[in-house]
């Protein structure tokens, strides 16, 4: 994210005599000069000079009131001040322009009827045009500002959205239930207290599980080998905790181990099977994980013989729905996730996605 996108618009967005303003001024003066040329009897230099002089003064006033005073009382808007400033300055500027261009003359221009008429003409036309130009410029500025702000806002929002999704995914990937953790630790402590040789092995499994559950930022996809190691670590831990109620087996050919696998995908299905199928059952059951590759697709099946799909249980599916979301982000419609009730009891969860190998 670049800093300038969100930085507030600078206080003086345009220099007083910026090129764009000068260009507009030149064009306006040129048009007015051309319009007046047919009726003009004096020198063209005077004509051009007077327009340029009046225009520059207007631009100066426009620019000055654009940035000064820094703070305005509530009852006056800056654009009003700018327009009033222009209206007030025009007669003065025209008068000055005439004084400057008629310096050598013995008679002051206000005694010369023709010159006085010319002065009136300049003042009148300026008053007619300059405030509108100022207003037009102001509207342009406001539009431009709004557009820039909208764009910046849009950018910021999409950026935030992306970040939110990232964060959510990381968070969901990193979820270790405190209930699971403390129960497992209580079990391990008992193994340690009783001097069981099993303690070290189970602790290793827990460490493997926790390590995997901590977000791996630079690994958008893991291999099936890593994923199944994680699944085994989790099942080992659970088997220590409820040995009489959980049996498990993992079938996967060695040739499949290099397949890409979305991180925590199989684990989510297995955790789901244990938490919602096996653990709520008095008699427990068996969890079977099977992976096959066919027609360029990787198919993972997690079958449990637990209590089956229960519509009363809340929370079933939060893990699955986030997995579904992640699959959608990674594969679009090319991935599928199905949950099927099986007989005599239990659930079969099936995950399918395009089989890919090697460096992503």
């Amino acid at each position: 994210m670049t800093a300038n996108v969100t930085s507030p618009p600078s206080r003086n967005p345009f220099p007083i005599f910026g090129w764009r303003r000068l260009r507009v001024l030149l064009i306006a003066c040129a048009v007015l000069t051309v319009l007046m040329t047919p009726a003009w009897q004096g020198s063209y230099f005077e004509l051009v000079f007077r327009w340029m002089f009046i225009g520059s003064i207007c631009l100066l006033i426009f620019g000055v009131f654009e940035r000064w005073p820094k703070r305005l009382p509530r009852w006056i808007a800056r654009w009003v001040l700018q327009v009033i400033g222009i209206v007030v300055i025009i007669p003065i500027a025209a008068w000055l322009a005439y004084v400057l261009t008629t310096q050598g003359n013995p008679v002051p221009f206000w005694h010369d009827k023709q010159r006085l008429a010319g002065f009136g003409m300049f003042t009148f036309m300026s008053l007619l045009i300059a405030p509108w130009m100022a207003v037009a410029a102001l509207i342009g500025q406001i539009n431009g500002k709004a557009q820039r702000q909208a764009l910046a806002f849009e950018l910021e929002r999409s950026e935030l959205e992306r970040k939110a999704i990232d964060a959510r995914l990381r968070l969901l990937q990193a979820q270790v239930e405190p209930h699971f953790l403390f129960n497992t630790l209580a079990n391990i402590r008992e193994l340690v207290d009783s001097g069981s040789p099993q303690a070290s092995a189970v602790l290793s499994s827990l460490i493997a599980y926790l390590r995997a559950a901590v977000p791996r930022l630079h690994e958008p996809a893991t291999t099936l080998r890593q994923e199944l190691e994680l699944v085994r670590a989790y099942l080992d831990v659970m088997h220590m905790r409820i040995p009489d109620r959980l049996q498990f087996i993992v079938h996967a050919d060695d040739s499949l181990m290099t397949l890409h696998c979305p991180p925590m995908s199989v684990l989510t299905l297995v955790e789901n099977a244990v938490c919602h199928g096996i653990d709520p059952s008095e008699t427990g059951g068996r969890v079977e994980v099977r992976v096959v590759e066919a027609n360029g697709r990787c198919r993972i099946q997690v079958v449990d013989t637990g209590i089956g799909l229960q519509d009363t249980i809340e929370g079933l599916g939060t893990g699955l729905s986030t997995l579904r979301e992640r699959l959608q982000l990674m594969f679009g419609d090319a991935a599928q996730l199905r949950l099927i009730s099986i007989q005599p009891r239990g659930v079969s969860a099936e995950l399918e996605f395009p089989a890919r190998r090697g460096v992503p």
Partner: protein
Amino acid sequence: MSARIPTAMIADDEPLLRRALRRMLGQVWPELEIVADARNGREAVEQFEALRPDVCFLDVQMPGLSGVEAARFIGHRAQLVFVTAFDRYAVEAFAQGLLDYLVKPVEVERSAETVARLRERLRASQGTIDTEALVEQLAERMLKGSAPSTLRWIRASVGSVVRMISVDEIDILRSDEKYTRIAWRGDAGKPADALIRTPLRELMAQLDPAHFILVHRAVVVNQRAISHVIRGGNETATIHLRSRDEVLPVMRNYLHLFKQM
């Protein structure tokens, strides 16, 4: 009471945690005799009915009948101590009330305090503190979401022992004057019978009408236990069950329940 050796039951679905609690109690309360181990709430209630221990250590999360539900059945007949792994809601609920609880992994110091309280209460033979309302509140909090109005477990006498029967295991309920006779699938799915002291009418009101249907004036059947229904002539039908040879006649008034679906 002080002359008697205090007895206790430990209910937890994780065997190592039962062992851990037993070991810990051995340290802080050596004279306590652990008379029963239970692997779930149902066993806990059954063991309690059979052995009547003075203290029940109940894991909150157990398969089938939870520790809190078991506590409702045991009521004030024993000193109750809930055991839970870190669980924000449960701990919150316990901390507010007067219920005794231990948090897994159980620390010796913490359990010594609880044990001291229990000992004091047993020694003074002041009975249990009135926990029933608290347990009821707790159960309500923890069971939120699962329909609380329908009965899920029934306490029944089978011969001389009390059994906890999940309503899902029940095949048939028959009215027997003031009692109800229950045909259910017991250990390893073998058909068994039990008698309970509640009239069928009262039970019926608490059972889920989606699963339990009245097929005769005095007979209620679990729809999930039905294998098939055979229609006879003259508006009669018989119900055949999955795990029983018994055949149940359907009264004419209830035939509409078995019209082609």
